[in-house]
């Protein structure tokens, strides 16, 4: 029995098909895609309809943890000692742009938390000294143009005491948020003017009346806080005028530091001269929108912070549904009509052929849009629309192969025996058309998926928030200039699916081609 079955047309087809590695691989992919479509939703990591941030509590993921970082600081005293953050008094924190990130004190230190993507400066101030850290929040806004700002200023603290009438040249260095160092006062001044000065001007230029120049925001300042004892000029030369404690503050942008002088013999209390930040740049993720691919979200999240992987998985079902159901409807109707028209001919054939010609005269997508316009948006109507333009394709190919099979002698033989027409169609003609129908079927599924996605993309799919590949692309298209993953992954899913079906169909065609030998 086994040996006899060996030469059945199906076995021969199977042997030929298995020889085509690429097609077999594509077939594997098709199976995988179908499995994902059926079982995928059970394994999808997130609910595709809600923002992931709303789901984090349920999943035991601490949103806080995800979006904030502790900024550790130390205070540097004039005697060279350092003090811990806890001992620092009067700490004030703020950010340049609260929409991007907020900063506040907490037990463990200063916490910076991200609100949305972008970059800003976090300023930590304690009395007369302050330091700046750059906060970069990754997300939809690109961070490429974030420029370094001055983070900390370090003034060389002289150990010796000074006498009245002495003068002293302050030595300054500064640390930028990107880690580079500036070593002279002139350079610092120049940089500060460049970074803040112009900005200042630009800002005011819009409002000519307001010239209220805030001291804090001045680009570069060097001034004495104790004008009785010391004075300082623009070039950092300190003149001591009377005994006592002298404090000189240097401000560049938002960063401020002090230098303390002992003038005269009386020893003085050390003061806090600068703040040292452990990291001058803080990188955070925007967890509320457009998260980049990470271990938490392999495909990232979209503009409403929904997990793209989950949406792609859920969308598979929808997409395959459109592909399979519409093509199945189209194939069944098309094959039946094609068989009847081809076999019986006459007025039925004329009618069916004319109808086919009319339908095929329109480009497929246009026809589908027309059907949607007529019936209204929605997935059922998409399926219907795709089916409508699949029917004529199948009518045409089935009719053509019916016409040629009808002329085969074995069909004539069956007729001469007295086999009823229905049996002839079913036993002799339909199996003959099956191979070409199968090939077109798989190829058409690819096309149907593409058209379905295109219709959704055009917003004709009804619910535009539904996890459907086309509508995902449509929603993400506005940000596609900057956000790569939101369009890439749904697009990739479409490409892989359509390609798999087409390569599989190609393989089928080659395997079913009787001219190609085993």
């Amino acid at each position: 029995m086994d040996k006899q079955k060996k030469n059945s047309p199906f076995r021969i087809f199977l042997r030929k098909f298995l020889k085509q590695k690429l097609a077999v691989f594509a077939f594997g992919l098709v199976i995988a895609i179908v499995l994902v479509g059926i079982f995928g939703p059970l394994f999808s990591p997130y609910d595709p309809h809600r923002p992931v941030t709303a789901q984090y509590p349920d999943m035991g993921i601490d949103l806080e943890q995800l979006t904030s970082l502790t900024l550790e600081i130390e205070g540097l005293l004039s005697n060279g000692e350092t003090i811990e953050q806890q001992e620092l008094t009067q700490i004030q924190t703020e950010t340049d742009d609260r929409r991007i990130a907020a900063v506040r004190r907490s037990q463990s230190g200063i916490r910076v938390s991200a609100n949305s993507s972008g970059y800003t400066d976090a300023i930590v101030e304690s009395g007369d000294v302050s330091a700046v850290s750059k906060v970069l929040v990754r997300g939809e806004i690109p961070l490429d143009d974030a420029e370094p700002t001055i983070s900390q200023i370090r003034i060389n603290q002289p150990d010796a005491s000074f006498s009245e009438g002495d003068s002293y040249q302050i030595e300054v260095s500064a640390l930028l948020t990107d880690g580079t160092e500036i070593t002279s006062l002139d350079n610092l001044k120049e940089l500060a003017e460049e970074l803040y000065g112009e900005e200042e001007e630009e800002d005011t230029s819009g409002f000519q009346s307001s010239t209220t120049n805030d001291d804090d925001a001045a680009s570069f300042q060097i001034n004495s806080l104790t004008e009785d004892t010391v004075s300082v000029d623009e070039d950092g030369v300190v003149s001591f005028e009377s005994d006592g404690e002298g404090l000189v503050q240097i401000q560049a942008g938002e960063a401020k530091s002090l230098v303390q002088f002992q003038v005269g013999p009386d020893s003085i209390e050390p003061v806090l001269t600068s703040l040292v930040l452990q990291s001058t740049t803080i990188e955070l993720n925007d967890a509320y929108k457009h998260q980049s691919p990470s271990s938490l979200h392999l495909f990232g999240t979209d503009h409403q912070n929904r997990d793209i992987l989950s949406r792609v998985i859920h969308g598979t079902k929808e997409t395959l549904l459109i592909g399979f159901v519409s093509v199945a409807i189209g194939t069944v109707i098309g094959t039946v009509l094609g068989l009847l028209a081809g076999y019986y001919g006459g007025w039925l054939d004329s009618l069916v052929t004319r109808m086919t010609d009319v339908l095929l005269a329109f480009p497929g997508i246009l026809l589908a849009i027309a059907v949607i316009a007529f019936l209204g948006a929605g997935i059922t109507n998409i399926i219907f629309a795709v089916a409508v333009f699949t029917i004529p394709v199948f009518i045409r190919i089935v009719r053509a192969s019916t016409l040629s099979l009808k002329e085969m002698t074995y069909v004539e033989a069956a007729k001469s025996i007295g086999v009823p027409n229905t049996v002839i169609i079913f036993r002799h003609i339909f199996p003959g058309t099956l191979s070409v129908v199968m090939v077109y079927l798989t190829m058409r599924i690819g096309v149907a998926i593409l058209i379905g996605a295109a219709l959704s993309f055009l917003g004709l799919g009804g619910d535009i928030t539904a996890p459907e590949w086309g509508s995902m692309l449509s929603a993400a298209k506005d940000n596609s200039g900057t956000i790569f993953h939101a369009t890439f992954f749904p697009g990739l899913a479409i490409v892989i699916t359509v390609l798999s079906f087409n390569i599989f169909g190609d393989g089928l065609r080659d395997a079913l081609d009787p001219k190609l030998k085993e």
Partner: protein
Amino acid sequence: MTANPLLEVNNLKIYFPIKKGVIKKKVTYVKAVDDISFLIKEGETLGLVGESGCGKSTTGRGITQLVPVTEGEITFQGENLAELAKGDLRERRKDMQMVFQDPYASLNPRLTVEDILAEPLKAHGVKSKKERIERINKMLDVVGLNRNFAYRYAHEFSGGQRQRIGIARALILNPKLIIADEPVAALDVSIQAQVLNLLKDLQKDFDLTYLFISHDLSVVRHLCDRVAVMYLGRMAETGSTEKIFENPLHPYTQTLLEAIPISNPRDKKERIILKGDVPSPVDPPKGCAFVGRCPKAFDRCHHDRPQLLKMNAEQEVACHLYDE
């Protein structure tokens, strides 16, 4: 000579319309079969002979109602086929089966031999599977095929074996008449002899009547009792095999016989070689169809169509030469 006529064909015409233009107006006709009559008696073999395009195959298909008959009467076992209801016609097919020329095309490659042979049984109401298998096995024995072949597919067989399957399919319903359309033309010489012998044996065993359509005169001479020679859709000559081969009357029959290659180099012969080709059946000559190629054509042949004339008890000819 007292046997009853099994099949009678009277004034059969089969025209195929040639449609032209957008509105498919019927413009002209291919006169594939143009007014022929003949009859086959029970138990005899009638050879229908002619060159390609003479309408011999179309005649066979017309008799089995595979192509629509334009005009004429086909009487089978006393019943006019054209007057039968559809159901009755299907029933009648049981007694009238065909064997086709191309054994490769006439068997569905997707079916096993068993499927192929079961088909006529199913179509004619043999419902029990056991009975079907029994009859199939018996039939395989009859045509000289191994019973195990029943489960194989047609494409696994050689031409001769396929033709045996084709014959088995035609015989399985115990028909009265077999219309064999060039059944050996596609076969190798050694296989051809096997099939011809098989056909002869079967005729004896099953009391069959054959309409044997062929272009090969040697095969016809071997197998047939009577011969009908067709030319361009018309009957040129009919008669017993002996008469036709020994004493052909129609000039066409004469040249046809002379054109047969000799069977031994020792009997090399001088022959009249026919000039020209068969004219198109769309626009046949007005008078005798053969007029353009006939070496003996005269004036009357060009405008007067000759009718079949009874020359002797066994021979009829359509030629003005004998029309006194």
